[in-house]
């Protein structure tokens, strides 16, 4: 944990990231309002919210560091620790449950040899479940990072996980 702390303290936002956050800040009557989108920029860059950039966000938005931390710890989407390159999140709320999401979760755990919220040793895939993704009409569904996959069957899931084992970029990104 100590090691991680120091490592993440040293991380710094890129120039482009800082500029994006400055632009976001100008969109709102109050700079603190840019908090959520600014943290999305941070996560886009690092895959999680490291300590160093959290301080930078506080500086840019002119808020207290604690105010940023409070937000990071409240919202589910912000990863407080690094996750795999691909974060596979399977919805297990009611409509997906009724159409087999628990079986998909079992299957993924077995195939990857992981429990929930664990990451493969090569850092490729983190497996998780998630609450209703508002795609219940295409259940069961899941997300790979921020991209959706719909009407996922067992066969389909196998294929998805195989693809992700070696992929560099998210193959499911849609413009």
């Amino acid at each position, binding site marked *: 944990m100590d090691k991680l702390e120091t490592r993440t303290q040293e991380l710094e936002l890129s120039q482009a990231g800082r500029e994006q956050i400055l632009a976001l800040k100008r*969109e*709102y*009557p*109050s700079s*603190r*309002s*840019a*908090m*959520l*989108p600014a*943290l*999305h920029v941070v996560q886009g860059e690092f895959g999680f919210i490291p300590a160093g950039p959290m301080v930078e966000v506080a500086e840019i*938005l002119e*808020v207290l560091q604690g*105010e940023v931390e*409070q*937000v990071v710890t*409240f*919202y*589910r*989407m*912000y990863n407080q620790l690094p996750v795999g390159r691909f974060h596979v999140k399977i919805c*297990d*709320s*009611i*409509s997906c*449950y*009724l*159409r087999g999401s*628990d079986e998909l979760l079992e299957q993924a755990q077995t195939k990857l040899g992981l429990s929930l919220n664990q990451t493969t040793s090569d850092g490729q895939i983190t497996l998780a479940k998630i*609450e*209703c*993704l*508002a*795609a*219940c*009409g*295409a*259940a069961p569904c899941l*997300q790979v990072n*921020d*991209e*959706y996959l*719909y*009407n996922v069957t067992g066969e389909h899931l196998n294929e998805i996980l195989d693809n992700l084992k070696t992929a560099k970029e998210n193959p499911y990104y*849609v*413009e």
Partner: protein
Amino acid sequence: MQEQIYPPPPYLEKVPFEYQLLKHRAIPGFARLEVYRANGGYKGLERALNMSPDEVVTEVKTSGLRGRGGAGFPAGMKWSFIPKVPGPKYVCCNTDESEPGTFKDHEVVENNPHQLIEGVLITCYAIGAEHGFIYVRGEFARGIRVIRRAVEEAKAAGLIGENIMGKGFNCQITIHPGAGAYICGEESALLESLEGKRGFPRLRPPFPAVAGLYARPTVINNCETLSNVPHIMREGAAWYSSFGTEKTKGFRVYCLSGHVERPGNYELPCGTTFRELIYGLGGGVWKGRNLKCFIPGGSSTPMLAPTDEVLDTPMDFEGIAARGSMQGSAGVVILDDQTCIVGAVLRLVEFYKEESCGKCTPCREGTQWLVQLLHRLEHGEGRPGDLELIQDVGGNIAGKSFCLLGDSAPVPYTSALKLFREEFEYHITHKTCLVGPKAGKALVGAHS
């Protein structure tokens, strides 16, 4: 969500009704400004800007449009509560859609972004606001990309910014991504979140109309509510109110999911019956099974048993209330007769435990207790008296919580217990399910 997931439904031949809110399904490229405009887009804004703001409010009042976010409050009336004071006012569009069983705003924001932007612009004009915010659920990453692009297009075309359509109306629109928290759909928590804080609900009064975003007068409406507005302004209140029932006018998107042959979003005149939706359009229960029960309006609404009386109920606010449930967010979830009700209820209640914001004790602690007790029931470890105990715990959440999330948490259990008490009891006495794939199999020690 992507157009191709839901093919153009065959039902349009059965219902004498043309797509309005989901027009993108019939017209490719609808997310692009030129396509939207070529199909009547921004005509509603044009007509609104040729009227006075008060006339626009009156038009929407006359149309009978009611909120689609859950409570069904008349939209025009909500707008008329905004005081005519100098200084900034705001419109916040609630596109945080997270209620299990609900997935209409997701489709709209990804495929029909200009309809929403136009609705927000008209609302801003009507209440005298010069800045509108569209709070989009953070998980809708693609929707956020799509609507941000649409905002840029509209800016470049002079539809957002200064002196819009040469009518002296100035308006900015900001797309605000959420970050994963059901509670931020609750309107006062949404405002906190927009101010860059944790999404804790606010004490009321003051109401947002008086002191909302940055303590200024604010209108908060659901994405679908505001998506209706361009149509009302383009075609007129009389046209709009020719659809629907006496007290629920217009059309809306019903979300059909669960054990049904053809799940998906169905745009229909308000007051279509459950039977028409589930059996006519949805193709009935999947795998040729029978309907056990259904949730009529998102996970927070009481389950209903499929009696003829219930199935022939028109889906509007009053009709469903008369059957002891609620229209809610129009998310209809179908459970077939092979479903063990205990498992389904546990899964429903788990959602509220996960999403409790933790601000107040009855909900934070109570939802944990509910889940723990239901969990032991589901796994064959329930004890005599547990059903009453669960009801007690539920009673200590509902009505004693700070916001409606807490009130909703026990609803799946209380409503299911009324319908299927013997199934719950069977779990205690026989340590197995009465129905479903696990019926007769020992549950003790089984994990999930």
